[in-house]
């Protein structure tokens, strides 16, 4: 056997090959030969090195352990001379840390615990072998070999896992209901409709770790006795649809989906179905109607999907994150999972942090982490040194939690006590410049628009609330509006058919509860304290700071600004449409808003 002083591993994954990995290897060998080093340095092929998102070909040099990246054949002579002849590390090609930075995920902070997101950004989502090398499909093998379906249900029950789609119903119980339904055909459905604005956890899991969802769904299929599953993905996520389809195809090729999985008697297959931009299709009965090819309108429950679901058959429907958590629970045990979190909410939850926070992106924290820790320790605090005003959780059916409750530990129960909900996990941070009446109006516009129109309280009630809120924001609020809002909210909550209507008044109720003074200011003082509502503000130009640079006049869309060059300008309030563009373009902070 020959001994080499140095080994060079060159990545030959598909991306690197596309970018000429083999040519680089040939060039390396040629150059080493002509420099007389061919007996000292050995060139070997290896799979992907480092981050899947980065461009190869990459190269590792041992024993030094130096990582070079982004190589081309033209670089080879120089590299061989410098590194192997002169023994100097070539800075230029060194792999730089910041390159692998993932904009959405970043590096986990100490408060975080990544269980569901553990593979995201680390493995190549389009390569099933990457997932398998991270103990992927081991849980499936384990249950098919050693567990009865009842035992699988028991593990999930013991783990305390609760549905991540919003309501937090115990997943084990749901599976049990579907399991006991006595029919031959049953379905497993994955809710990947993630419609809450401000939430993108599910998208990231589907795009970065699709096999964890596939594996979770197969396990659910085994547990409840289903042989077919559907992933219902919203049309806004084309990449997720593509990634899932590739994952399903690869799983089929390896016999992990299809007939007699891993040689057992269990058969199961999956299909991806796409939505078409209707928020209400996230509601489980509406979602099933949509898969069936109909209008996505919800129907009353009971009967619950576990009894009468897709095409009238018992069906189990869970969220993406719920399924993605299942394999690791099976692998590491229910006890381990149940040891994380709070008494009633076990494990971890992913959240999408967005809004006026320094580090926006995806996070995963154990239940029981406080809002303060989420906003300041994980999120890095408020942007531009401003003050926190409210934390909005639960999407358009959630609520706004004021600063006083920032030390609340987050779990399903504490959030509902505050009038909000966990929802699917979007957290929007709002700073002092946010008008809470305007936010309530914004959410009501959303729910009113997305109401499917089937039930009256939701269809007409949300419309009436929106009209009142719009009126208040326009500066035409009347005495009695607050009381009407409260009355309508109660009625809609109590009488609506599905969760959309039942949750729709939440943003109004929480802002009324915690920020009532802002409503009062709008209605009675005709003032918008945050200076947002166009009907209640006026723009003017301050004498001192204005240099007469004419930028504002040139940018004003309605020519409301007049003034000579180098003279203080003036805004005609009758023409001004309060678009705020002058304030944005002014370099001297000369625009004042009252």
């Amino acid at each position, binding site marked *: 056997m020959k001994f080499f002083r140095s080994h060079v591993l060159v990545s030959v994954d598909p991306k690197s090959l596309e970018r000429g990995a083999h040519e680089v290897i040939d060039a390396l060998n040629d150059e080493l030969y002509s420099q007389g080093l061919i007996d000292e340095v050995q060139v070997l092929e290896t799979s992907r090195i480092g981050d899947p998102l980065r461009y190869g070909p990459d190269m590792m040099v041992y024993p030094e352990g130096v990582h070079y990246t982004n190589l081309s054949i033209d670089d080879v002579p120089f590299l061989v001379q410098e590194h192997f002849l002169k023994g100097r590390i070539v800075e230029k090609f060194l792999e730089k840390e910041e390159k692998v930075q993932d904009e959405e995920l970043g590096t986990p902070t100490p408060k975080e615990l990544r269980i569901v997101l553990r593979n995201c950004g680390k493995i190549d989502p389009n390569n099933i072998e990457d997932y398998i090398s991270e103990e992927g499909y081991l849980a499936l093998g384990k249950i098919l070999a050693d567990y009865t379906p009842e035992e699988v249900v028991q593990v999930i029950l013991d783990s305390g896992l609760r549905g991540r789609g919003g309501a937090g119903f115990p997943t084990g119980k749901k599976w049990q209901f579907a399991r006991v339904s006595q029919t031959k055909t049953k379905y497993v459905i994955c809710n990947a409709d993630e*419609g809450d604005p401000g939430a993108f956890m599910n998208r990231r899991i589907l795009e970065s770790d699709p096999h964890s969802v596939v594996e979770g769904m197969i396990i659910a299929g085994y547990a409840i006795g289903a042989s077919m599953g559907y992933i219902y993905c919203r049309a806004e996520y084309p990449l997720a649809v593509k990634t899932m389809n590739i994952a399903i195809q690869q799983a089929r090729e390896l016999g992990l989906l299809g007939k007699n999985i891993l040689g057992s008697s269990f058969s199961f297959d999956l299909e991806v179905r796409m*939505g078409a931009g209707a928020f209400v299709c996230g509601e489980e009965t509406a979602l099933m109607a949509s898969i069936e090819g109909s209008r996505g309108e919800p129907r009353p429950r009971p009967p619950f999907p576990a009894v009468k679901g897709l095409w009238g058959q018992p069906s189990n429907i869970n969220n993406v994150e719920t399924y993605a958590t299942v394999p690791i629970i099976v692998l590491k045990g229910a006890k381990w999972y149940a040891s994380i979190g709070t008494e009633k909410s076990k494990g971890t939850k992913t959240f999408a942090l967005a809004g006026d926070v320094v580090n926006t992106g*995806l996070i995963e924290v154990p239940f029981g982490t406080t809002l303060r820790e989420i906003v300041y320790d994980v999120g890095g605090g408020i942007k531009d040194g401003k003050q926190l005003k409210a934390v909005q959780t639960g999407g*358009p059916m959630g609520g706004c939690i004021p600063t006083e409750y920032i030390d609340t530990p987050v779990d399903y129960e504490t959030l509902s006590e505050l009038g909000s909900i966990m929802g699917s996990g979007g957290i929007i941070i709002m700073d002092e410049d946010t008008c809470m009446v305007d936010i309530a109006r914004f959410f009501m516009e959303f729910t009113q628009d997305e109401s499917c129109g089937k039930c009256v309280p939701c269809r007409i009630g949300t419309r009436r609330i929106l009209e009142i809120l719009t009126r208040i924001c326009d500066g035409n609020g009347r005495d009695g509006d607050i009381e009407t809002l409260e009355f309508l909210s109660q009625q809609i909550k109590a009488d609506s058919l599905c969760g959309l209507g039942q949750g729709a008044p939440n943003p109004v109720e929480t802002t009324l509860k915690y920020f009532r003074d802002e409503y009062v200011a709008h209605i009675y003082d005709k003032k918008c304290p945050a200076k947002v509502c166009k009907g209640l503000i006026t723009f003017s130009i301050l004498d001192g700071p204005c240099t007469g640079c004419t930028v504002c006049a040139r940018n004003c869309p309605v020519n409301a600004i007049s003034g000579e060059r180098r003279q203080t300008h003036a805004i005609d309030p009758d023409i001004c449409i309060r678009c705020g563009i002058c304030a944005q373009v002014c370099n001297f902070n000369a625009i004042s808003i009252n």
Partner: protein
Amino acid sequence: MAVSITGQGFIDPTQEPMQKEIIDDILARNATLPGGLMVILNELQNEIGYVSATMQQYVATKLRIPISKVHGVVSFYSFFTTTPRGRHILKFCMGTACYVGGAPQLIEKARQVLGIDPGETTPDGAVTIELCRCDGACSQAPGSDCRR
């Protein structure tokens, strides 16, 4: 229903040999799929760019279902449009993160530059401004998406 032709030379695709071939292919592949109507409409919207009244009627006849059923589905989902849109689509996200992050100002600017309101197409048929729901890119808010 007669061949419908609107302002900008909008020709009924079911009468166009090339388009008809695409439509027939989509129908043939999915006609027997359980719940195939949604799949068919999604593919039509993607391939042709819209699902006009005549197309809806064509689909209904081929699938042997009432046209009211097809129209009910088309009109329910916001992704399906019944008329052609501009060659470029400028979509602004109106999700919460983007709203808080300044989407309204961006839209205002686009309105000024293009001279059209959201939902409208420029007279030359080049650009349509659309507002959409959260695109799931909230950490980079405010977001817009430009197609074709």
